[in-house]
């Protein structure tokens, strides 16, 4: 396993090369809120026919812990896009918050993302479909290391309107050339995901089936 440092504005992101086959399309793993990349290829993905990578988001794992917070799902999408710039094309497998980011990226980079797989994990619901009572939240205590406590707060509050999510799915459907740009394996169905699974481009399936499907997609 090796770590590839990627620059995203003022942040250095850690992209972990976990292993897998030396050639073929990459599988990019995106972790959940407060998590970090796994140390090795997860058992479910050991059959993937290409290299397997995992990205630590800003403020998580071995990536930079910035000062002052300011996290959004959109900036994490740009984190993932930095990995995509390095890999050129990838199938993206996200857990929780990483699933939401994978969905955003599939819509924003429809030609480079060859399938997004959305799985359960921390931060799948985000802050819900509309803003709640505003509050100014400061971490209870400073933390010595990852994850950034401000990331834990802010990424539990980011608002995810269902029609915003579906606009990304439609874009992936129209511009990716894939019949099913999204595969949903998550059991939890926050409002945004309940709307996403109603879209023609999203299919509810198992992780094993989704990986097998995208392994054959060009």
């Amino acid at each position, binding site marked *: 396993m090796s770590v590839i440092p990627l*620059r*995203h*504005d*003022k*942040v250095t992101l850690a992209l972990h090369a976990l292993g897998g086959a030396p050639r073929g399309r990459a599988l990019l793993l995106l972790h959940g809120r407060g998590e970090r990349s796994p140390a090795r290829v997860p058992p479910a993905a050991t059959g993937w026919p290409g290299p397997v990578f995992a990205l630590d988001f*800003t403020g998580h794992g071995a990536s*930079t812990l*910035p*000062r*002052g*917070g*300011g*996290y*959004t799902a*959109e*900036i994490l*999408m*740009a984190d993932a*896009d*930095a990995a995509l*710039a390095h890999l050129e094309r990838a199938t993206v497998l996200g857990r929780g918050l990483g699933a939401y980011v994978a969905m955003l990226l599939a*819509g*924003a*980079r*429809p030609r480079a993302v060859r399938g997004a797989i959305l799985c359960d994990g921390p931060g799948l619901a985000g802050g819900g479909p*509309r*803003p709640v*009572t*505003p*509050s*100014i*939240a*400061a971490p209870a205590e400073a933390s010595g290391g990852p994850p950034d406590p*401000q990331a834990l707060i*802010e990424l539990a*509050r*980011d*608002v*995810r*309107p269902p029609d*915003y999510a579906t*606009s990304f799915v*439609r*874009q992936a459907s*129209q*511009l990716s050339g894939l019949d099913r740009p999204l595969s949903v394996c998550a059991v939890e169905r926050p409002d945004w995901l309940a709307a996403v699974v109603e879209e023609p481009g999203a299919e509810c399936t198992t992780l094993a089936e989704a990986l097998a499907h995208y392994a054959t997609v060009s």
Partner: protein
Amino acid sequence: MRDRPGPRARAPAGGRLSREVAAQPLEARGITHPGARAPDRTRSVDAGGLALAVHEWGDADAPPLLLAHGGFDFARTFDVFAPRLAAGGWRVVSWDQRGHGESEHAALYNWDADARDALAVLDSTTREPCPFVGHSKGGSVLLHLADACPHRVTRLVNIDGMPSRSRHPDVAAHERTRLLADDLAGWLDHRRRAAGLVRKPGTLDELARRRGRMNPRLSHDWLRYLASVGARRDEDGWRWKIDPALRFGGFGPWRPEWTLQRLPGLSVPMLGFLASVSEPMGWDTTEEILRSYLPPDAEIHTLADTGHFIHIERPDEVAARVLRFLA
């Protein structure tokens, strides 16, 4: 450093620029503007590890009010307006928002972070409730803060900072997908380049002319004055201090009515100003749009023949109304 001539020798335009800059080494110090006054005090506040520059006008013992600038501005855009409030007996406390003016450039920017920074500045100023005055995005941030911390505010003044603009209202849905795709790809491409970005250098006049495209109603002399306080002088020319990673436009889940919904339940008296002339940085909000959202006793003024920078176009009139409202 290499001692042979750099790009200057190769690029005629750069050469001209460099000579111009060399000929005006002290120009910024000499630049004044009628009615403009530099802050009486400046200080730094630690906001979650970021250093924010705070600028104050008026007697340090006077009652404080919090004054917030808009996006892509900085506190010293209040150099004409703030002294007028200070002359009315207030300690006017403003700050450069993260990435703007003299404040530190941040890795991350969002709405909550701006509100948190505002509270850090307020905490460093007073624990008593005080008036909030905000322009444009600063008005919306303070509206958010007033809702989050109603115990910290006494009165709210909003200068064209109540959003309503909905983009592309007349575009069909299938075309909108294409527009969103272009917005997204453009933004992500910008993020891929952001690490290496620097602002374009120029003379103060060039910076003023560039800013004039976004501020078409403000005089060149005023914009040149702003450049002299909002830009820094590098070897190859002046550059705006704002973080080059910040960018106009963009996308996201936020929608204007979320901010408007903070209005009806506002617990303190409110004074609002609206522009009547549409311009690039403006929000195009009208009294008609606001009507159903305003708290019962809100006082709203739409100023005739006035653009988005109401307090810069009409500093005396706006300051006089604000002082009457706060009295």
